[in-house]
């Protein structure tokens, strides 16, 4: 219903106050968005840049957007096709989507999921058991994948833009800090320029 106007508002918000470590932009169509999430510090995804595809359904916001990873990621709740197992991405009663959420909050949730996998609700059983019972191996694999697929060299250009954006947002950090995952992303910002 309100998709168009709502999306317009959300996009302008995302442009002016992106959550730390997250960027999102329109990909041609109004309903086709792209996003990048920076891997959090102290996670095996650190220094990785993960691209996501966001398809906004016609019925948005009464239906959640469809979000998937374009960048391969080694994660118990994200499968090889990039699909994400996350409750807020699904409609109730199975899921927890509600129209008061938005793309920004969803991306933040995904960022958090990356930092805190949920092995009890696995999408990738083997990765999940590895995460549970052989964490070292999991970390190793995840890092390897991050380096291989989400290395910064591959994504350097967009990254720069992102960094700029996230730096501009630093000034607003005080307001943003309340959000979950802020800590991670703040660290990220620091780390990003280094690289």
């Amino acid at each position, binding site marked *: *219903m309100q998709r168009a106007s709502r999306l317009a508002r959300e996009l302008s918000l995302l442009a002016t106050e992106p959550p730390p470590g997250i960027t999102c*932009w329109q990909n041609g169509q109004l309903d086709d968005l792209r996003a990048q999430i920076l891997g959090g510090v102290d996670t095996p995804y650190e220094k990785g840049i993960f691209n996501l595809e966001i398809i906004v359904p016609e019925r948005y*916001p009464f239906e959640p957007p469809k979000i998937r990873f374009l960048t391969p990621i080694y994660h118990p709740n994200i499968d090889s096709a990039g699909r994400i197992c996350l409750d807020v991405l699904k409609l109730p009663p199975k899921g927890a989507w509600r129209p008061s959420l938005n793309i920004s909050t969803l991306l933040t949730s995904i960022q958090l999921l990356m930092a805190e996998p949920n092995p009890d609700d696995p999408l990738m059983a083997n990765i999940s058991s590895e995460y549970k019972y052989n964490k070292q191996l999991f970390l190793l694999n995840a890092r390897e994948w991050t380096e291989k697929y989400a290395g910064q060299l591959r*994504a350097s250009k967009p990254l720069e833009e992102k960094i700029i954006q996230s730096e501009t947002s630093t000034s607003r950090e005080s307001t943003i800090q309340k959000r979950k995952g802020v800590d991670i992303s703040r660290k990220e910002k620091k780390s990003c320029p280094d690289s």
Partner: protein
Amino acid sequence: MESSDSSDKGSIDQSEAQRQSQLDRLDREEAFYQFVNNLSEEDYRLMRDNNLLGTPGEITEEELLRRLHQVKEGPPQQNSDENRGAESAEDVSNGDSIIDWLNSVRQTGNTTRSGQRGNQSWRAVSRTNPNSGDFRFSLEINVNRNNGNTNPETENEPSVEPSNGEDLENSQSDSEIPRSESPSVRQPGSERSSAEELTAEEASLPRGQRRARSRSPEQRRTRARTDRSRSPINAVSEAPRRSHHNTSSQTLDHSSAGEAEGSSRTRQHVTLRQHMVGTEVPSENAVLFSPPETRPAPQAAGSSETTGTSESTAPGQRPPTIVLDLQVRRVRPGEYRQRDSIANRTRSRSQTPNNTVTYESERGGFRRTFSRSERAGVRTYVSTIRIPIRRILNTGLSETTSVAIQTMLRQIMTGFGELSYFMYSDSDADSTGATPSHNVETSEPQSGGGGASGNENADVSSGEVYEGGHEASSTSGARREGRNTRGSVTFEESGSLPFLSLAQFFLLNEDDDDQPRGLTKEQIDNLAMRNFGESDALKTCSVCITEYTEGNKLRKLPCSHEYHVHCIDRWLSENSTCPICRRAVLASGNRESVV
């Protein structure tokens, strides 16, 4: 990454054009909200319930206004539609396919038809909501009791008409003079038929079986004729029906609602078949007949009925008017079956506080509700079917689905197939299996029995039986009863193809079973509503992320969260929790309450 680069540039390039179109859209949205805000509550409901609001930004205000006027003028239009209805009726009668009919309905929107036969007059009204894909038939039959004979017919009729899928609404013409609107086909038949019927009835009086046999030939003729000369058919079919009717009803009375008792059903069933079979297919008769003989009870019942029914029983026991109300609704993605059922219940309740029986069944994703009520001589049947058709179009019909649909539709068309549901709730699966084969009425004794079991069910069952017979003979020619037959027959004959179109007609729903439960319109309307005033500081509707402006209508949920009416209503129609706090909007437990 690369893709992102290009996409960035792309978006920039496109931004100009997009910006313009988005601006236009925003303007329209603005107009939309303005429009909604200016609507009176009644108008708002009217438009919302008819799905006329559409999507903000896609519809211009003028269009909205036009729609509103259209809706408001709706009722008168329907009347004026009668002429059209007549035409369409003809189509129906001629075009043997229910789907054709559906299509015509879809095109014309609303249709009203009426006709008369013998003492009874009928009127069918169908309404289709082009936006939602829902459609509804109501069929009302009035019987003139001056003739004792007619009574049975009336009852028969209902069964027939329902089969068409239309509900009979008030047709109250007592005289045998066909209404101007009544389809040409029927008219010729009606007079004759009445006369013939009389004879037939008399003949039939001795026993249902005899009647059946004697008439079976007639039916064939009728079929052969394929014309509209239905009089013979009518007579034939009716007579058998009557017999059914009587039998079934009586049996029913005795065993009334003996759902639990399989035996009673079977008997009834058998009896019904006999009559039915006799009427339609002689060959089958042999088979069928044998069983009946074995069972004395049914026969006796039948005989008693025949005598009693036509003469004495009818006036007192049978309501002069029968109203069938059939609704087929497409289930929207978010809609929950539970909710549907609630709505139905509410509806039926409100219609008839007394003597209401509601039955609800769910099978293979369908939810169907059937209720019957009797009051002040008017018998009302309400049947609502929710069909979440999933991926039928794309995927093709999965066996189960198509079967289930077929069954349901067939039953609908047949008229009171529901009754059988009544009986069978548990054995649904069985019936389904059997039904798809349609032709096998014989094989489906249960269904027949089911019909019989309900007092009123008799009608239904008879309808079904007939169908079976017709089908067996594979004649679609039998029209007059034909309506019943037609519906079912068509389906069967047409096979899956028609179903496809039917499915299309109902529209598809891709969503899965596990869908959120929404609230009914009534429930939503019960929530507090107010106008936004400037004094209310702050606040943005969290659904559309738009700040409230003066005059906006807000809905306040029990948890005190507020939203734009049009925003929250849509969410609540598919969900039952507050978008902000996720608290249930309704006190739990209400949902399950039945009748």
